[in-house]
């Protein structure tokens, strides 16, 4: 509780500036059996997302005649946390699975897959702060890798408040000892918010500034997502034209 999260120069414990992201790396197509997959390393987070589908719906009564249903599971392996996580599915995992599903659904063109199920599984091999945003960012890339028709990618990043300052991309220590965390996900090309959560304490002006930071973070993650997909499909970093943005 008495850790100083910022030094006199407003540099964070891991050396980052206030608006600086942790190192992020995305590998596409890491799970051979899956229809699409991605591994994201986001700070110490290591998360694999894999997509199976479109496939038949089980149990059948969940079938929608005019569109696909999306199943989402955010799950942590027992070794992913500092203290071993109990293997049973927690209430936290249930809630996060739900908000991630509702963050991805707006981006998927569900009407293109009537009577189908699209299954998105996110496995946290190692967790750090911001795992839900990292997981959904990987899931969005995995959906693209699976060839699912999408309106846009979904890019997630949290902003928050630590040591009295608004910062981008809260890590584990900052999450535990900081003052606020605002996980956010957007469809970057469309400029729409698909996930928004907040816990902590923010005045209205801090709220507005934190939200602004979060959007900037999402845009940075989006850039990395696109590069990863370009890399996979064209064997190169994304080149020149950024005209779609």
């Amino acid at each position, binding site marked *: 509780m008495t850790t100083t999260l910022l030094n006199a120069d407003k540099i964070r414990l891991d050396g980052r500036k206030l608006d600086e992201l942790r190192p992020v790396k995305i590998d596409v197509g890491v799970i051979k059996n899956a229809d699409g997959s991605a591994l994201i390393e986001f700070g110490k987070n290591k998360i694999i997302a894999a997509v199976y589908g479109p496939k038949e719906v089980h149990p059948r*009564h969940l079938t*929608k005649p005019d569109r696909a249903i999306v199943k989402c599971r955010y799950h942590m392996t027992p070794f992913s946390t500092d203290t071993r996580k109990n293997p049973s599915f927690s*209430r*936290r995992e*249930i*809630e996060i*699975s*739900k*908000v991630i*599903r*509702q963050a991805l*659904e*707006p981006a998927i063109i569900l009407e293109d897959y009537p009577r189908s199920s699209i299954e998105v599984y996110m496995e946290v091999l190692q967790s750090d702060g911001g795992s839900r945003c990292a997981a959904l960012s990987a899931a969005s890339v995995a959906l693209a890798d699976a060839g699912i028709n999408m309106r846009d990618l979904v890019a997630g990043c949290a902003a928050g408040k630590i040591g009295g300052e608004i910062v981008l991309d809260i890590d584990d220590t900052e999450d535990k000892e900081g003052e*606020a965390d*605002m996980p956010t996900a*957007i*469809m970057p090309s*469309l*400029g*729409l*918010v*698909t*996930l*928004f*959560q*907040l*816990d*902590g*304490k*923010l*005045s*209205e002006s801090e*709220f*507005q500034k934190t*939200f602004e930071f979060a*959007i900037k973070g999402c845009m940075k993650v989006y850039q990395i997502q696109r590069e990863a997909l370009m890399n996979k499909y064209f064997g190169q970093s994304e080149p020149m034209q950024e005209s779609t943005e």
Partner: protein
Amino acid sequence: MSAVRKAVVVGTLRKSQMKEQLEKGKRLDGRDLLQQRKLSIETGVIEKASGSARVRLGDTEIVAGAKVEMGRPFPDTPDQGLLIVTAEVLPIASAYAEPGPPNEEAIELARVSDRGIRESEMLDFSKLVIKKGEHVYSVFVDVAVLNDDGGLFDAASYAIVSALSTAKRPNATLAEDGSLTVLDETSDLEVKTLPVATTFAKIDGKIVFDPNTEEQSMMDARLTLVTDSEGKFVAGQKGGSGVFTFEEIRELARTSAERGIEIRKAIRDTIENGSQKT
């Protein structure tokens, strides 16, 4: 499935009516876009609880019961009392509520409610310790939805805040041999701020406050924001499979803060007077 079919019927009939109304700045139930339903709060409804309240928000009805009991602290927070929040949408509450363990919706309700209490620092958990590392007070907050007509996050927060504000806790002392004695007199639980939730829905591009079940079935997305007595934002949760624009989020923060002031006033009146209707 019945829920699905109902939604379909609503879609073809009521939704076009709703659209018409929204363009006039009105809603199907006659409310203005940002008008809350009639709210009434009654405290002390469960004598066996340490604190309790029943909230009616339109046709939604919720009871929250708080119990303060002896407990053991978590190893990593030996000098903090405990908070456990659960929520159940009882099967009496609607034709779509199923008996059984809490589903995804009920778990989300419990977790968002928990965050409101915890992040607002409404309770001072460092004062809920009898002996560090060994004996603390556990605060259980259990939310039961009796009738579901939407607005559960909001109604639950009003019920919880009212229950905790009027709650008593036991007084235990530790004998020399380490045994606990629970004294006869109780103390106030002491609440430091009143975190209240405000939920907005986006329907056909318009934002409405305090959506009911029918409106929820039509909405694209939902945003809940929780503010404390100082107007600070302590929790937030987007729901639904739709989206918000950046500007909508910004604007809703402003609106939420305003609405919180009125609602906290109603709750404060209730706590002082025992029951309150707006």
